[in-house]
């Protein structure tokens, strides 16, 4: 890497396997700082999960419910608007909206939701719908991917999150989410999304039954697509949470979390941003990860249902002063960003949080 060559899959595997933690951290830190300096981004956002009813039953998921289950819910438009209103009152710049694949809600429901939010809250960027949901819309309407994306964009979709990627390798995917769209399909949808001029993120779910080889394969496919489209903004490794899921496994370790982030940074040389989602790894590891190649710690979040259903031990909200302090204490410069990484505000040394 220092010679300017691309890191091979073999090298990435070796980096996952090594316990020379200082070396991996340092290389990832150099790769990060070359691109982003000392700046670390966060966003003031609000997550909204409109429904937990989902036709898929992914084995790693503790969030999804069938319609008949007592904890199943679908928000009304009013409930969604209340949350968006809260977001506005907290000076948020983004709504992050993902949910289950509801068997009955028509595509029109989602179009109306976006349209209403767009009209009422024009200042809020709407980042919504994973590739899995986009595929679902295409199937329930019979419309092409391109047409689904075009219609969503027309009513206000600003960008897409990176969820649903899990691990692309079919042999792993069959074990953890056999009903979900394939890795190929996920990548195909993202290519289409990027082609339509929308940015997205990319995730990788680790710490379940995947192999290190399958992680590297996952990242290689992301790197190849990014070479073609350049449409991915950030890479976000997601730590598997075992509680209430059908996969018998412990929580990920700190080393596993940090290596996933650091190797991601080193291998994905065409991704500008690597995000450590504090809800997943906990605020402490998120802070340490700023020395392991990470330049983004997500945001204020406010209400998080998906990881918490699976036993997330972090809280649901961090305030702006908390985020700023945490970044500062790590010796970095806090920068509030919007969804597309435009600077909203920078906190240079000494500025009050």
């Amino acid at each position, binding site marked *: 890497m220092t010679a300017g060559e691309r890191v091979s899959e073999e090298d990435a595997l070796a980096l996952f396997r090594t*316990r020379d933690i200082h070396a991996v951290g340092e290389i990832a830190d150099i790769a990060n700082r070359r691109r982003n300096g000392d700046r670390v981004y966060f966003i003031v956002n609000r997550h909204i999960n409109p429904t937990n009813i989902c036709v898929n039953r992914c084995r790693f998921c503790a969030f999804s419910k069938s319609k008949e289950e007592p904890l199943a819910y679908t928000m009304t438009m009013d409930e969604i608007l209340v949350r968006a209103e809260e977001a506005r009152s907290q000076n948020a710049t983004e709504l992050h909206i993902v949910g289950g694949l509801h068997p009955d809600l028509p595509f029109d429901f989602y179009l109306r939701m976006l349209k209403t939010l767009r009209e009422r809250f024009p200042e809020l960027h709407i980042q919504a719908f994973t590739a899995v949901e986009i595929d679902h819309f295409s199937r329930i309407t019979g419309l092409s991917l391109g047409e689904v994306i075009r219609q969503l964009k027309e009513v206000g979709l600003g960008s897409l999150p990176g969820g649903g990627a899990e691990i692309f390798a079919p042999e792993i995917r069959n074990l953890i989410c056999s009903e979900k769209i394939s890795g190929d399909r996920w990548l195909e949808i993202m290519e289409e999304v990027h082609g339509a001029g929308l940015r997205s993120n990319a995730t990788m779910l680790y710490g379940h039954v995947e192999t290190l080889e399958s992680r590297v394969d996952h990242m290689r496919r992301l790197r190849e697509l990014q070479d073609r489209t350049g449409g991915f903004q950030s890479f976000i490794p997601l730590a598997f949470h075992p509680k209430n899921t059908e996969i018998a496994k412990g929580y990920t*370790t700190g080393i596993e979390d940090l290596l996933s982030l650091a190797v991601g940074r080193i291998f994905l040389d065409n991704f500008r941003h690597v995000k450590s989602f504090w809800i997943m790894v906990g605020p402490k590891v998120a802070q340490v990860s*700023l020395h392991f190649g990470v330049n983004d710690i997500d945001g204020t979040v406010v209400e998080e249902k998906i990881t918490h259903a699976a036993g997330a031990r972090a809280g649901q909200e961090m305030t702006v002063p908390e985020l700023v302090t945490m970044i500062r*204490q790590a010796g970095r410069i806090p920068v509030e960003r919007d969804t597309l990484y435009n600077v909203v505000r920078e906190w240079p040394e000494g500025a009050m949080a």
Partner: protein
Amino acid sequence: MTSSRSWREALDAAAEGRATVEDGALLLREAPLFDLGRAADVVRRRLHPDGVVTYIVDRNINYTNVCSCQCTFCAFFREKGAPGAYVLSDAELSQKIEETLDAGGTQVLLQGGLHPDWGLADAVRLAKAVKRHPIRLHGFSPPEIWHFADRSGVSIAETISRLKESGLDSLPGGGAEILDDSVRGLISPRKISWQQWAEVMREAHRQGLPTSATMMFGSIEAPEHIASHLIRIRELQDETGGFTSFIPWTFQAGNTLLSRDPRFGESQPSGFGHAVGYLRVLAVSRLILQNVRTVQVSWVTMGAKVAQLGLFFGGNDYGSTMMEENVVASAGVSFRMSEEEIVATIRDAGFHPRRREEHRCST
């Protein structure tokens, strides 16, 4: 910075075991995280070349939360007669010990508040109650020893020797907080001074009782205070050789009076009471305290994940299963780890877990 010395020079000095207070403070402030980690790792490897990381199965028993010391950083204490105040009965104590033995535990860590009515006789009674069971007794930190001696009007030497006769095996290094009286005056004005803490430890070592040493940082101290704490332990260890382990941990602010002190708020941005700061302090501790064999990571305050990373920043001991923990939990922090989790975490980091039994005290 105004310092004429560079962090590299300070790091060289520390690696050679001759860091000064100024060097320690400079390292805490300026040395890059991975440079500190690597240097600490070199010391850890030299002292523990086999890559073994130890832990112990024991139980933390707090015999009372009634305490006349009332430190502002503490959320555990109650005044006598206040709601929530408790004193464990002999039956409760016995039951906890039986549970510990049933769980395969080999040691009890016995600590409590400074109960205003209690003197040496009460401490002896407690020690004997514990030692009716076949278990190791690691108990009574220096403020407790001082309190018993003071209440009973006997010397520190006599207090320790009576407790030793009653079965006490070793002393925990608690109550050290920051060994600097200007800091102590702010966070624990009624607690024994740093010299008194050292006096108790010196006497315990003289009588052949091993002890640990601790440090609570991340409240309102400056890096110089942390460095000075480490140097004071190093000097005491040069004198007695009685410290088996050093355990730094971070102040937990929840439910404490200190968390509402404006000076605490002001000190946070430059303080070390966070994950990255913890790793820096851990590494500097390992570098400065090369004459103390073991440095313990604190999963109780940092969680399993950062504690695991601590093994790359100088730590060679993972502490204890605790079974119960009351003091840090009072401040709203309650991480939990079973023996299986501790073993798996150590292995995942590439080290060899080994359960420790005797002779090396923890906490």
